[in-house]
């Protein structure tokens, strides 16, 4: 379980949020500049809150400025808004970047499964600039999940895609969540996407959680 309760002074307002997440999909919704990305960065350890606590499955990530676990030790998957694929590495090296040199049979199996589910096995030798936006998104997902994270953070994962690819990728995310059974935390400003993907949707306004709703469309899609 993910437990977040943080405060952080941002440029124009103070971020002050508390929420918990079980193995479900939580959507952080709100207009741009509401502090959504700052929450993801604080959970990942890429920025430090001013105060508060962050724990995942009983492991403390942050409990004050002096008790902060570095990002590399948190075992979190992070999908960046523009994917942040390493431009000088092939798709294969991107996906294997976070794995230790000796890949065990289990990790090998997991990566095979990821490549098959996401349909990107044929792209391994390509460089990021040689593949399409939708393919980049899938490669970045595979890379984020390859390290077998305990939590997946997704920052506007579908905003750069065209309508058709976006719908495909939404279904893919739901399928992956069914397989993976870890908390997914998705940032989006699209209301329809929030409703389609989220078990719960947290609405954020100027750094505060103003409302919580349940994803209305998800039940009918998955079952």
């Amino acid at each position, binding site marked *: 379980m993910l437990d977040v309760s943080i405060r952080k002074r941002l440029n124009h307002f103070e971020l002050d949020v508390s929420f918990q997440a079980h193995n479900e999909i939580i959507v952080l919704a709100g207009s741009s500049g509401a502090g959504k990305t700052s929450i993801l960065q604080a959970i*990942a*350890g*890429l920025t430090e809150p001013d105060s508060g606590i962050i724990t995942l499955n009983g492991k403390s990530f942050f409990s004050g400025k002096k008790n902060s676990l*570095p*990002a*590399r*030790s*948190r*075992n*979190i*998957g*992070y999908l*960046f808004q*523009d994917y*942040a694929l*390493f*431009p*000088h590495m092939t798709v294969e090296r991107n996906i294997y*970047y*976070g794995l230790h040199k000796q890949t065990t049979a289990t990790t090998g199996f997991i990566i095979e499964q990821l490549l098959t589910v996401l349909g990107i096995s044929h792209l391994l030798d390509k*460089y*990021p*600039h040689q593949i399409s936006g939708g393919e980049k998104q899938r490669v970045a997902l595979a*890379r*984020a999940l390859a*390290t077998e994270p305990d939590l997946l953070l997704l920052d506007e994962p579908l905003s750069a895609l065209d309508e058709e690819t976006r719908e495909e990728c939404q279904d893919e995310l739901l399928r992956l969540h069914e397989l993976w059974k870890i908390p997914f935390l998705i940032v989006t400003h699209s209301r329809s996407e929030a409703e389609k993907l989220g078990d719960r949707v947290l609405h954020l306004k100027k750094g505060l959680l103003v409302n919580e709703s349940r994803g209305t469309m998800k039940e009918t899609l998955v079952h």
Partner: protein
Amino acid sequence: MNLSPLLLSVKVAVISTAIVFVLGVFLAHLFSKRQFFGKSIFESLFLLPLVLPPTVVGFGLLILFGKKGWIGSWLLETFDIQIVFTWTAAVIASVVVSFPLMYQSAAAAFDSLDNKLGDAARTMGASEWRVFRTITFPLAWPGLLAGLVLSFARGLGEFGATLMLAGYIPGKTDTIPMAIYFAVEAGKMEKATFWVVIITALGFSTILWLNWWSKRNLRRFASEKR
């Protein structure tokens, strides 16, 4: 014709470029994307040799490394090492005048990198050293190489500060620019012309190669952006 000026010039330029590369990359990486009190003062100090007359740089180096200088007297007393009038002095002069070129290129290269790439590596468990080795350094390499080549060319042509600190001792501290100056002074125009042609050819081919190489890289990056 005695070719020792050519060998000495290349030796001095290679060694000083190696020092400047390590120092410039280290400091530029340390300073990049960090804001702290006094940063612009440090950076202005780093770039100062670019705007000062070489004689002023040489004067400063004499104050430091001369026999009675702060560092020079200590080296002489403790290790019995003399810096002035040796080829080591020529290396020190080259390091100081070419450092700004390396620092500027490296700082620009590091600043232009996307922070997210390093962050992505960190979330995948990479240590800071691994981020530098596998992400920052390879992606900044075109800019670092430009700095490397410019520093080499600058080191090869260094004259003023070298003359102040290393002097002109034939066979010992006579780099090509020195040889040219003292050949002209002695009226040996033929000898001077020979060295002028050599150093012009060296400088020209260095810049030609750098331009060709960076254009090729620009094209590659442009196609990546698509």
